């Protein structure tokens, strides 16, 4: 196409071409370039977000491998302490005294000592400030009173202490017995750990048992 010979006409045409070009450029910018840029920005942001999430996820998955073994080890230990060894005092229809006094009386019988047992009850341990979660355990205590020679008494509490590393004799009173100097008047408190919420404890143990039985059955299957 030739431009008009007339200068004014030519300028007009050129201005029209310029305007047209500007319009076309504007259209290009609005219709193509801007969406392209915004798409690019959105995708780049999504990619960065996903990459960060994936990085975190891979780290968590790596941690899981370590946590899995450690968790299994902890759960086995918890099951051993709470279910197999009965180191914790559990309520029998809401009654803690029955189980606890039965344990103490069995040791007393072995030591040939007569005892009286009185319930002190449950008490909370101060909450550690270094931990986010609440305490899982509290204490349950009994007061035991008896009259015994000191050697026999030591034998008696050795049996109690050696058979449960988690219990603690939290108070002890030994005084002389004027009427029978060979037998001292003794009173002591025995303190066991007990689940703060028994249902929560049982749930954790049930879950752990279910998990191990599942793992065991899988192992059996693979062995077959």
């Amino acid at each position, binding site marked *: 196409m030739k431009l008009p010979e007339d200068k004014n006409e030519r300028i007009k045409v050129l201005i029209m071409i310029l305007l047209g070009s500007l319009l076309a450029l504007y259209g*290009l910018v609005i219709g193509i*370039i801007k969406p*392209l*840029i915004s*798409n*690019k920005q959105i*995708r*780049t942001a*999504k*990619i960065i977000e*996903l*990459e960060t*999430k*994936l990085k*975190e*996820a*891979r780290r*968590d*998955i790596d*941690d*899981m491998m370590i*946590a*899995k073994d*450690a*968790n299994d080890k*902890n*759960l086995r*230990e*918890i099951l051993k*302490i709470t279910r197999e060894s009965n180191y914790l005092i559990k309520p029998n229809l809401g009654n803690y005294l029955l189980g606890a006094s039965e344990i103490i009386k069995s040791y007393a019988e072995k030591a040939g000592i007569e005892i009286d047992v009185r319930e002190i009850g449950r*008490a909370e*341990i*101060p909450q*550690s*400030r*270094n*931990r986010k*979660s609440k305490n*899982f*355990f509290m204490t349950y205590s009994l007061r035991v009173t008896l009259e015994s020679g*000191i050697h026999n008494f*030591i034998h008696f*509490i*050795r049996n109690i*202490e*050696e058979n449960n*590393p*988690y*219990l*603690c*004799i*939290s*108070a*002890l*009173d*030994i*005084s*002389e017995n004027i009427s029978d100097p060979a037998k001292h008047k003794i009173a002591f408190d025995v303190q066991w*750990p007990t689940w703060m919420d028994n249902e929560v404890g049982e749930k*954790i143990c049930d879950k752990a048992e279910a998990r191990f039985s599942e793992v065991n059955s899988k192992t059996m299957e693979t062995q077959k």
Partner: protein
Amino acid sequence: MASCGRSWSVSCDIRGSMNLRVDLILESEQRSASPISVKSALRISYITIPLILLLVFFCSFMSNASLKRDLSKLEAEWAETEPRREESLKLISDFQVSRDIRQELNGFDNSSIEWNQHLLGLMREVPRDIQLQKLRINQSLQLVDGTPARMFNMTLNGKAIGPNAAESVMTLQERMEGSESFAVVIREAEVPEGSFQAITENGIVHQYNRVFQINCKYKLRKFE
């Protein structure tokens, strides 16, 4: 006047001389003195600008397409990783629970004292001329540096018989603080002021025999 596009002009000045000017080149045939003429620059730009624009669009499209591919690849990877991550987060949170439970149970173990051993040690360390009349141990639960701890105190009441009563009580106090079996658990042992006294029986004050009291503070037994 113009013919065949060529122009000529005649001019006459006051001195009577005449100038004749003939333009032999058409306007369109005129060439610029500049090495790049505007026209050719324009012609080149007709091709290059759209080409550059096309190239820019093409690159943008390609980079967008590549971003789209990367994004869909990452999304697929995330879809595969997310359930595993959720599983791992659950397992990590389970692990934290089991770790807290174990730590708490270990706290019960570590914070207790085996009193049977302690009493046997005490019997060994008491000098022959001392007769213990009363022993009292009590425990209080406290928060120490944000961690719960058991604090034990022991009070010993007894009689020291013979001319070396004071030395014997001092020996016992020193042994309670310094002997191998006690130093591990006892922080300090002291004879409170006024507690070391002569024994009075039926209004008669014994020359040598003394009653005494030793207070022992135990080292903190943290639940950790």
